[in-house]
């Protein structure tokens, strides 16, 4: 079993390469959602309510054909005169009189006034064919716009003839291989008021505009496209100063290339938290936090660092003016003005409610295309919530992120989380769309409010899991270690106090050690002295003992001498060296 997606893909390519020839309209986005344009040589029905842009779409189809594809076009206008049409589209930069002069365009205004027409018997609409055929032949047209053919229903009484003739007209257009757009007013329960879809079944495009909370959004849907796959969704589109822009969701692809290049966050300590190198180039980074946590300041660091490297940045601000941001950032030591002056930084500040979401997206697209930045900041994306519903905002952001990723642009987006919200949830629920998420939060303790920062996620990066306290100083952001101790997590003054306490405690213990060492030394010295004294005693005693021994020895010797002398004197012994000497020594040994 294959999943349905690849199946559609192969089918699409097969059709594009194989069968149905298509005609590029040249309208931004329309060729993407129709996978190559309208069916060539066939009529396409464009229907929708009043003011939804049917005529404009048709005119742009003709003008783009004439100017970009060398396919001249004929407009049969049943409602407006050529002059009216020309002035209507002049605001889009289309110069119809010039195109007409260069034989790239022919406009024929067909007007029927029923009150001045009497129907008397059989007739047909051959003159319509004659006129169209003449116009087509005169400029060699490849494209035709019928706007709006339904006006005939009001001008002619005999509807049966009209229907038959319309059927013949569409057949005729096909036979002449003219790629045609037929516009039709939206009916009550039908696509068109007079059921044109009955005859035009090759391709039907429905235009629509809706007002949601005072903001208008135009949408387009390809209802059917015989013989081709096409984008099924409703796509928002815009009528801008250079024509229609349809915004197809390109996210289904997820085919963008990735970079292993890393770029600094602008805060060295934060780079360290990101494994030492900062963000991946081309990734999308979300910075979320409650108000006043320093989101803009953090992004300003990133921008500053990028501009210093010579990269271009586009800063989309939905809350502050460029001047205000620059002034505020100067207070933390970041001078963004010089980058603006150098042309490296572009500010686009606009209130989110100025226009609808799509318009914002198109503006962003446009600026990015023209300015070509490598870094984009959106501050804050939640601001866009004011311009549409959460669902729409999410879809817009998805498209924006995909667009930026496709262009390898690093995007930093801030989102404001309200205090009551769960911190780890963004208002537009976009966490899954981004690659890295920095969370800034307040830490309230000891009667003050301090800022903490941590990395909630960073795809593909071994990142720090630590909460750091971050300070906004005159020299920018500084990250501090948060004090983790017995008293829990301490920040701000509490941390400073605790750190001081720790320092004094350390000092105390150092002094204690020194004191103890001193004491030990003294003790050792005292003992040494004692030992010396004892030694002295010992020596004295030894000496005395030795003296005594010597005296005693002397005494004994003297006594022996005396005794011998006495014996000699008494003549008891023979002589001093015979016999007696032995006995004397024997006696001595017994003693």
């Amino acid at each position: 079993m294959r999943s349905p997606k690849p199946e559609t893909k192969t089918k699409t390519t097969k059709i594009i390469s194989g069968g149905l020839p298509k005609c590029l309209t040249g309208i931004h986005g329309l060729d993407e959602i129709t996978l190559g344009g309208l069916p060539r040589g066939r009529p396409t029905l464009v229907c929708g309510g009043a003011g939804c842009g049917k005529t404009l779409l048709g005119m742009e189809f003709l003008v783009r054909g004439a100017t970009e594809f060398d396919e001249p076009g004929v407009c049969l206008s049943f409602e407006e005169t050529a002059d009216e049409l020309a002035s209507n589209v002049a605001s889009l930069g289309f110069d119809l009189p010039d195109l007409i002069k260069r034989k790239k365009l022919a406009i024929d205004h067909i007007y029927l006034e029923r009150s001045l027409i009497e129907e008397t018997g059989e007739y047909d609409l051959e003159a319509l064919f004659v006129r169209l055929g003449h116009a087509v032949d005169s400029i060699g047209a490849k494209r035709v716009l019928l706007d709006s053919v339904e006006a005939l229903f009001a001008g002619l009484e005999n509807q049966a003839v009209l229907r038959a003739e319309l059927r013949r007209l569409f057949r005729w257009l096909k036979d002449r291989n003219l790629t045609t757009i037929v516009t039709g007013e939206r009916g009550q329960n039908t696509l068109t008021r007079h059921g044109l879809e009955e005859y035009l079944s090759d391709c039907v495009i429905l235009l629509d505009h809706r007002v949601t909370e005072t903001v208008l959004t135009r949408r387009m849907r390809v209802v059917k496209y015989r013989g081709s796959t096409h984008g099924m969704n409703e796509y928002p589109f815009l009528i801008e100063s250079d024509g229609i822009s349809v915004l197809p969701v390109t996210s289904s692809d997820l085919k963008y290339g990735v970079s292993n290049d890393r770029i600094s966050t602008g805060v060295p300590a934060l780079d360290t938290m990101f494994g030492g190198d900062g963000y991946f180039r081309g990734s999308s980074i979300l910075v979320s936090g409650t108000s006043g946590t320093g989101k803009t300041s953090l992004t300003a660091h990133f921008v500053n660092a990028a501009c210093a490297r010579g990269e271009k940045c586009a800063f989309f601000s939905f809350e502050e003016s460029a001047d205000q941001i620059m002034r505020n950032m100067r207070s933390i030591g970041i001078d963004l003005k010089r980058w603006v002056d150098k042309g490296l930084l572009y500010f686009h500040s606009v209130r989110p409610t100025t226009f609808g979401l799509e318009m914002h997206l198109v503006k962003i697209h446009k600026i990015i295309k023209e300015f070509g930045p490598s870094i984009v900041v959106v501050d804050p994306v939640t601001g866009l919530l004011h311009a549409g519903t959460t669902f729409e905002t999410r879809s817009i952001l998805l498209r924006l992120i995909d667009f930026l990723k496709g262009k390898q642009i690093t995007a930093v987006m801030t989102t404001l989380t309200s205090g009551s919200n769960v911190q780890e949830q963004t208002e537009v629920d976009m966490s899954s769309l981004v690659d890295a998420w920095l969370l800034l939060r307040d830490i309230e303790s000891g009667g003050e409010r301090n800022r903490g920062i941590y990395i909630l996620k960073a795809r593909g990066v071994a990142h720090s899991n630590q909460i750091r306290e971050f300070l906004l100083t005159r020299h920018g952001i500084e990250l501090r270690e948060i004090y983790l101790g017995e008293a829990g997590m301490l920040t701000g003054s509490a941390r400073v106090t605790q750190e001081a306490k720790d320092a004094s405690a350390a000092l105390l213990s150092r002094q204690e050690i020194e004191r103890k060492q001193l004491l030990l030394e003294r003790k050792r010295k005292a003992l040494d002295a004692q030992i010396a004294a004892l030694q002295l005693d010992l020596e004295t005693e030894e000496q005395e003992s030795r003296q005594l021994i010597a005296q005693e020895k002397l005494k004994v010797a003297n006594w022996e001498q005396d005794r011998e002398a006495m014996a000699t004197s008494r003549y008891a012994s023979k002589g001093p060296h015979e016999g007696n000497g032995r006995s004397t020594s024997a006696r001595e040994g017994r003693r």
Partner: protein
Amino acid sequence: MKEMAGVPAPGKAEDKMPTTSKRAIKTWELRLYVAGQTAKSLQAFANLKRICEEHLSGEYRIEIVDLLQNPQLAAGDQILALPTLVRKLPEPVRKIIGDLSNTERVLVGLDLQPRQLGRES
């Protein structure tokens, strides 16, 4: 452009004031648009000729425009259906489409007969 005047026109109409009174008009200028010699166009021309003879007593001029030969002429009179009869004079310009087989409605269209309240089907 073919000119098929039923009767030679007695000079141009001086009085161009729009009026519905046929007596004040000298000449009726009628133009019949067709595309080739189709059955419908022949039918229309025959019907027109007959009606003019009967009701305009010679004070008319019919011009036949074949759009197959001069397609650029269709835009000027805003011709869409064929055949179309255009009453150029007297003003205002009126248009009658179809093969003119319904004489009564042709007369209404040419303002030769007051419009009836209920039209026949």
